[in-house]
C-alpha cells in the first residue's frame, strides 16, 4: 500500500471527522493507501510540516494557504470538502452590539496564527481600523478558549459554529444572551478546511494518483460521517490520544460540521474561490495577499477522483 501522511490544522476533533471515518471504515485501505493522520495544534504551522517533508497533504484554510504561497511556499488546493464557513463573531448582548457598526470602540477577540486573515479583511471592508481608539476596534490575541467573553475582557470573540460557540453555551450563557455574526452572512466568508499539497509533487504522476485515491476515499469518509455523525464522533474519540475530548461535545461538533460539508463533493467551487480571493485582496492598506494568486488550485485531482 502507498503511504500518505495527512497533517491536520488543529487537534484531533470532529472538525476532521471525515478523515477519521475514512480511516476507521477502511476506505483508505480499499484504495490501497496506508494513511497516517497527524494532529495539529495551536502552534503547528501545517505548511511548515509540508515543506519540511513531514506530511504529503494538509488541511488548511484558503487565506493562510494563499498567504503562505506569497511567502514562497508553493501549496496548491486539490480538494475542498468544506462548502461553507463556520467562522463567526459571538458577542454578549449586554454590550449593546446589534450590528457591525457597533463594533467601534469595543474590544474584540481574534485568533491569530494565520487565522486572523478573514477577520482582518472583514474589518477592512467595513472600514474599521484595528488599531484601537474610539473609531476603531481594540484587538486581542484570543487564546485557546472562550474565557475572554466569559470574563468580559472582550465584547466579542471569534468562535466556530461547531466548537467555541457551544462552549459559551455550555458555560451557562443562554443563546438569547448572545449575538452572533456569521462571516457567511456578512458576505466575507472565506473557504475553510481544504486539502493542500506541494506544487512540485503534483508533477509526479504516481503522487497525483495517490492523491486522487486519497481524495476519493476522504470524500467517501465525509459523506459517511454526515450520515452517521454520532458514530463518526466516536471514531474521533478513539483516535484522540490526549484523552481530553468528551463524547457529548464531539457528537454535537460532528453534527455541526456536517452542515458545513453538506453539498460539497470535494470539488473546489471556483466562484467561492474567486470570492475569497477578492475579499482577501480588498484588504485596504494591509491586504492579506498583494496580487491575484496563480495556480493556487487544481481541479485535476477532483476531476479524476469524482469520475
Amino acid at each position: 500500500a502507498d503511504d500518505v501522511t495527512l497533517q491536520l490544522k488543529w487537534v484531533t476533533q470532529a472538525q476532521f471527522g471525515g478523515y477519521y471515518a475514512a480511516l476507521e471504515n477502511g476506505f483508505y485501505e480499499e484504495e490501497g493507501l496506508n494513511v497516517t493522520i497527524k494532529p495539529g495544534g495551536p502552534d503547528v504551522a501545517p505548511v511548515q510540516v509540508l515543506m519540511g517533508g513531514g506530511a504529503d497533504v494538509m488541511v488548511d484554510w484558503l487565506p493562510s494557504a494563499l498567504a503562505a504561497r506569497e511567502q514562497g511556499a508553493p501549496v496548491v488546493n486539490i480538494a475542498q470538502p468544506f462548502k461553507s464557513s463556520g467562522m463567526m463573531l459571538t458577542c454578549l448582548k449586554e454590550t449593546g452590539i446589534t450590528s457591525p457598526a457597533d463594533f467601534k470602540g469595543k474590544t474584540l477577540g481574534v485568533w491569530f496564527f494565520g487565522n486572523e486573515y478573514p477577520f482582518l479583511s472583514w474589518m477592512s471592508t467595513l472600514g474599521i481600523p484595528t488599531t484601537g481608539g474610539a473609531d476603531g476596534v481594540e484587538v486581542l490575541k484570543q487564546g485557546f478558549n472562550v474565557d475572554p467573553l466569559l470574563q468580559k475582557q472582550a465584547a466579542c470573540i471569534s468562535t466556530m459554529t461547531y466548537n467555541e460557540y457551544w462552549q459559551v453555551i455550555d458555560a451557562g450563557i443562554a443563546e438569547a444572551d448572545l449575538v452572533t455574526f456569521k462571516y457567511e452572512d456578512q458576505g466575507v466568508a472565506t473557504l475553510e478546511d481544504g486539502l493542500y499539497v506541494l506544487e512540485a509533487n503534483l508533477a509526479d504522476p504516481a503522487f497525483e494518483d495517490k492523491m486522487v485515491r486519497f481524495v476519493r476515499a476522504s470524500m467517501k469518509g465525509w459523506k459517511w460521517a454526515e450520515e452517521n455523525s454520532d458514530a463518526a464522533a466516536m471514531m474521533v474519540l478513539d483516535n484522540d490520544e490526549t484523552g481530553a475530548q468528551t463524547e457529548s461535545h464531539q457528537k454535537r461538533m460532528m453534527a455541526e460540521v456536517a452542515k458545513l460539508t453538506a453539498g460539497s463533493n470535494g470539488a473546489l467551487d471556483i466562484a467561492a474561490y474567486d470570492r475569497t480571493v477578492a475579499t482577501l485582496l480588498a484588504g485596504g492598506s494591509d491586504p492579506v495577499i498583494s496580487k491575484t494568486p496563480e495556480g493556487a488550485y487544481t481541479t485535476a485531482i477532483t476531476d479524476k477522483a469524482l469520475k
Partner: protein
Amino acid sequence: MRMAAVLGVIAGFVLDWRLGLLLAVWLGAWLVNHGLSQGGGVWAMRLVPVIFGLCLLVLWQMAVTLFAVPSVILPGPVAITVRFASGLDMLWGDFVQTFVKGALSGYFIGCGAAIFAAIAVDRSLFLQRGLLPVASFLAALPVVGIAPILVMWFGFDWQSKAAVVVVMVFFPVLVNTVEGLRAADAMQRDLMATYSASYWQGLVKLRLPAAMPFIFNGLKIATTLAMIGAIVAEFFGSPTQGMGFRISTEVGRLGLDMVWAQIAVAALAGSAFYGVVAMIEKGVTFWHPSQRGR
C-alpha cells in the same frame, strides 16, 4: 587530536562536499581560536568568543545556502539581518511591550517581593520550615501551566505577563537570598552580639551586605527567566503587540525571518540584561574574592 579533526574533514568531503566544507570552516575557526587562546593576550581572549560566534553564524548561513533549506523552515542570518533592519519599528514596539512593560516590571516586583519574603523567612524558623518546602513545590509548577491561568486572572495586557514573571523569578531569588542571609559566618554574627546590636542593625550592617553575592546569583538567574516568562505568557493571550505575540503570529504566517529577528532581540536584550546585572554585582560585591580574583 588535530589529526583526527583533519581526518573528520576529509571524511566529510568524501561523504558530501558540502558537509566537508562546513567541517573545514569549523576546523579553521577552531584552530584560530586555539592559537589565540594559547597566545593569551587580553585582547586575544576577548576575540575568542567573538570568533566563535561569527563562526557559528557563518556555518549557519552556509548550511542554509548549500543545502537549500526553505526559508519557511529556517532562514539564514543574512535574511534575518535584512528583516531586522527593515522591521526596526515593529521590533522596538514589541520590545517595549514585552520587555520594558512586562519583563522589567515583573522582575522588579518579583525580586523585591522575594527579598522581603526571604527576610521574613529568615527571621522566623517556623516560616523557614513551613514556607520553603511549600515554595519549592510550587516553584516546580511549569510556566506553561500557570501562564493561561494568570492571563485569565490579570487580563491580556502586560500586567498578566508581569505576573508570570513575578511567579517565575520569585523562587530562585528567595532561595538564594535565604541562603545568603545565612552566609555571614558565626564570628561576624558574634561580633554584632558583643555590640548588643539590634536585629535591624545586624540585618542592615552585616547580613544584607554578606548576602549580596548570593542575592546577585539569584538576580542573574532571574534575568533570563524574566525574558522567557514574559514571552511565553503572550502565547496565551495578548494585545496585538509583543515579542511572544509576534513570534507566534509570524510562525503562523510563515514569516520565519521576523521570528528569528525577534529571537535575536530576545537574546541581545537578555544578554544585555544579564550583563547589566552582572556589572551592578561587580560594583556592589567588589569585596568578594570571586570579584577580586578577576
